[in-house]
């Protein structure tokens, strides 16, 4: 199954993925319209820093954009008392119509990847972009200016990680 991964060598912590994610989950799917109409909700992925400075990586530090790992078996699915959180072709999906906001899933997610906001919000792998291909398939991947975000299987991502990055990148970091 295709999932999203972040290459820590390329991520500079710009949070473009967070904004793109939040915008993707608004009715207008437009940054300015959604801000003006107050539609903007929380992002379903977050840039997380390991090291002292979140936006510029400190020596030995790492920044990563993380969201739902679509675990199997998924602790959030086990914890869901309504059946809202469920697996669908390997993806972990929340049927927000069924969600009652008990936050058992929030408590169970070891990655802190579920946001409690009336309903349980999480990465849904951009269902409205199902027709798109390439980097446009996912809003966060499309928005990533350094191509740190990668969509594919972990085996494919491992091949990306095995390739050296150009010297220019090291300088940028």
């Amino acid at each position, binding site marked *: 199954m295709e999932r999203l*991964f*972040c*290459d*820590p*060598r390329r991520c500079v912590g710009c949070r473009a993925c967070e904004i793109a994610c939040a915008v993707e989950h608004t009715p207008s799917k437009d940054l300015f319209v959604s801000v003006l109409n107050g539609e903007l909700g929380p992002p379903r992925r*977050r840039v*997380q*820093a*390991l090291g002292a400075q979140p936006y510029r990586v400190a020596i030995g530090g*790492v*920044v*990563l954009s*993380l969201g739902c*790992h679509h*675990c*199997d*078996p998924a*602790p959030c699915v*086990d*914890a*869901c*008392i*309504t*059946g809202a959180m469920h697996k669908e072709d390997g993806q972990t999906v929340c049927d927000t119509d*069924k969600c*009652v*906001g*008990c*936050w*058992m899933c*929030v*408590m*169970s*997610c*070891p*990655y*802190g*990847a*579920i*946001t*409690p906001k009336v309903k349980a919000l999480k990465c849904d792998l951009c269902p409205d972009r199902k027709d798109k291909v390439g980097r446009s398939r996912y809003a966060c991947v499309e928005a990533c200016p350094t191509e740190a975000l990668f969509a594919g299987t*972990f085996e494919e*991502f*491992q091949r990306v*990680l095995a390739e050296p990055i150009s010297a220019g990148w090291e300088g940028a970091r």
Partner: protein
Amino acid sequence: MKPRYVIIGASAAGSSAAETLRRHDPNAQITVVSDEKITYSKPLLSYYLAGKLGEEQLFFRSPDFYERYGIEKIHARAVGLRPEKSTVELSNGQKLHYDKLLLATGAAPRFPKVEGIQRDGVFGLRKLEDAQGILARLPKTKRAVVLGGGLVGLKAAAALKERGVAVTVLIDSPHALSQMLDESSARIFEKIFEQNGVAIRTRAKPVAVLGTKEKIEGVQLASGEVFPCDVIVVGKGVDPSVELLEGTRIRRDYGVLVDDYLRTSVENIYAAGDVAQARDVLRGEPWINALWPCAVEQGRVAALNMLEKKAAYRGSMRMNSVQFFGVPVISAGLAVLTPGPLGGRPGEHDETLESRPAPGIYRKIFLKDDTIVGFVLVGDVPIEAAGVLRILMERRVNVASIKEELLELGPDLGRLLPLIVENKERFVEREFQELVHTVGV
């Protein structure tokens, strides 16, 4: 010959086991026996009682679940078990042979032994029929008394309040939610209930349910004080349903004792869910954490072992998440020190971290030898941190290096990555291994 799997019970553990069996063995003969006609989510009953959900919204599996998975469902009660013959006897006279049997019989509400408790109008809140019984009485109900200040009792109290009933909660213990919260966080909720018009009485010991055969009139306390009411809801915890074990050699303590493969002491018989006393990660001894997520996981692990795919159960721990009148609370581990059959014991923590940045916001973390053994998060805090704290607690990770930051922890896995990398042998899941590999580049 196709193996025959029989599951007694169709709630969280039973359904999860049935689903797992079918996923891994398309040909197996699977039979689920339940004394309830439909499969619904018990934790949602208080939502149903409050009128927030209709009956059709209580299903946690689609109504055609059994059909779609090719699982035989028998609506009957299991009344006899003969392990030497590998048979289960049902209330409808049927005798089922099994190759592997799962006991997922669950638990039943514990009613206090007070005079008149069997009167009409006294309900638990465990089965759909309990909720339906309470609802049927609502038109004639002005006042209700809830016995017990645990999760179920308080959820019932809040639900009845929303239905316009005047509610008094009578609690034996010195404070509400004594199995879930420490005293100071419990006081926050007692106040919230009072502010929302629900009367809370602690250290209140009921001695009798007053009334006639047809109609209850009130609850009398040891002090002589009487609380008049038209309906009583009992929320004083549950006892594992072990009746089926009578006359068998299946070992039990409080519940059915199971090993790390969720096997009982008798061959080919497994147990999962609220009836099973399985490993508790924090206590290191068999314990019952009668909780939905534990039951689902145990059902799955038991099924894998019934299929002879050796799967070890990591163990459960107490954890709960709930909202009362819009205020969320998450509590996990050995956060309470109230002694009792399911309470904590002194000495389970040696350090407490606490913060109250604003009224009604409260975080407390309990540590023992620099590992987290419990926590309570109340109010408008980033409760996503609960998941991160929980995994640290479950994997027994030494948190000395980030102790100062624990109380400020948000949903920030990044902060924990060094700990995960250092303890990678404890984070065996594929997803964690991928992360460790990724940051190691």
